[in-house]
């Protein structure tokens, strides 16, 4: 059961681990005392924040950062294993914005069960992308040259590296902000930033495990953005959100 107060947020976990979502628009202070080895997957800070992951001791975490508006946020996490209490928070030095700590999988030492609720299948540059209406098409682009000889037969010449994958990702009716996505993962604003960045990106695709409970494996590809298009479907002025359909094509480098 999670309890909240004005300074930091405590989460109590049972041995199998839990997933919690927190929403706050207030300042929260950080606590840092790590006393046991806990691996945190996909810890995410969203909205406008510049964050640095401060000394976490034996706790490892991955912070996905968004654009900065001049405020600074320090992310810290702590585990007090004797009480089975895990607290996580951020101190915000300036600015007024929402900080949302999204879902994360927690694996305590020795734990092998993955009890996460919504499991994202895709991550771009290490940031999970929303599953809301997501479609994924994958095509194989063979690296070969086919020459037709004088006698009509064909010679096929293969390049040394493996055939390349081409990925087409499509979403319909996704919000701009991730906090309005059903799974709180990165949504249209993040996808458009990826499309605007011409450097190569990493696309991670999660593999299915045998029973849906063990920790996942994944494949990672280096990809380039080939095309991006979007259509504005709806402007919801009451909650200040735009809804888009997006299409992103990525080719493996």
């Amino acid at each position: 059961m999670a309890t909240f107060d004005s300074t930091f947020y405590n989460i109590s976990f049972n041995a199998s681990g839990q997933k919690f979502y927190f929403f706050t628009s207030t300042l929260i202070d950080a606590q840092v005392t790590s006393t046991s080895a806990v691996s945190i997957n996909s810890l995410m800070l969203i909205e406008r924040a510049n964050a640095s992951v401060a000394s976490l001791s034996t706790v490892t975490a991955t912070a996905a950062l968004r654009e900065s508006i001049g405020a600074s946020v320090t992310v810290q996490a702590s585990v007090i294993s004797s009480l089975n209490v895990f607290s996580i928070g951020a101190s915000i030095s300036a600015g007024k914005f929402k900080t949302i700590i999204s879902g994360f999988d927690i694996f305590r030492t020795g734990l092998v069960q993955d009890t996460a609720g919504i499991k994202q299948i895709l991550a771009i540059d290490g940031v999970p992308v929303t599953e809301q209406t997501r479609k994924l098409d994958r095509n194989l682009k063979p690296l070969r040259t086919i020459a037709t000889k004088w006698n009509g037969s064909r010679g096929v010449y293969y390049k040394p590296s493996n055939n390349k994958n081409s990925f087409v990702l499509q979403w319909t009716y996704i919000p701009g902000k991730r906090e309005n996505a059903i799974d709180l993962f990165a949504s249209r604003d993040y996808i458009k930033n990826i499309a605007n960045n011409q450097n190569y990106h990493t696309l991670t695709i999660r593999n299915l495990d045998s029973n849906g409970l063990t920790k996942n494996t994944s494949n990672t590809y280096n990809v380039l953005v080939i095309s991006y298009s979007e259509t504005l479907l709806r402007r919801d002025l009451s909650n200040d959100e735009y809804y888009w359909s997006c299409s992103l094509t990525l080719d493996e480098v």
Partner: protein
Amino acid sequence: MALSLNQLIQLNSTLITEHGRTFSDSYSYGNTDIELASGNTRRFLKPPKLNFSFSWNYCPDKQSMTVDAKAGRDFLYTTAFTNDPILLSIQSDRNNEWKNYTCYLSDYSESLVRQELSTQTKYYNISMSLSEI
């Protein structure tokens, strides 16, 4: 009676009607991708440019007849047939920030769908495409 709406776009600093408006955009990448002998891809970068597509269904010609009393077909038609670059402003962020793009007109088409003699108003289906310079 004009509705109170947040306008999405301005052309040359003039608010354009939301009357039957659709909007989509896409990136145009001018990169050069070369496939090496090893099979790897090398990319020579150029900044991406945006292409914008708008359409208005049943858009009145007069501004006074649009649902939000903003510029209608007559203004779009006049803008389309100038040879100058067009300043496109889009309020695509939800916090009332306008993003400006200098564009050229890549396509304009319209079809007359109705002439209303009582109000002396013509209604058009309009399609307009702009490309960022």
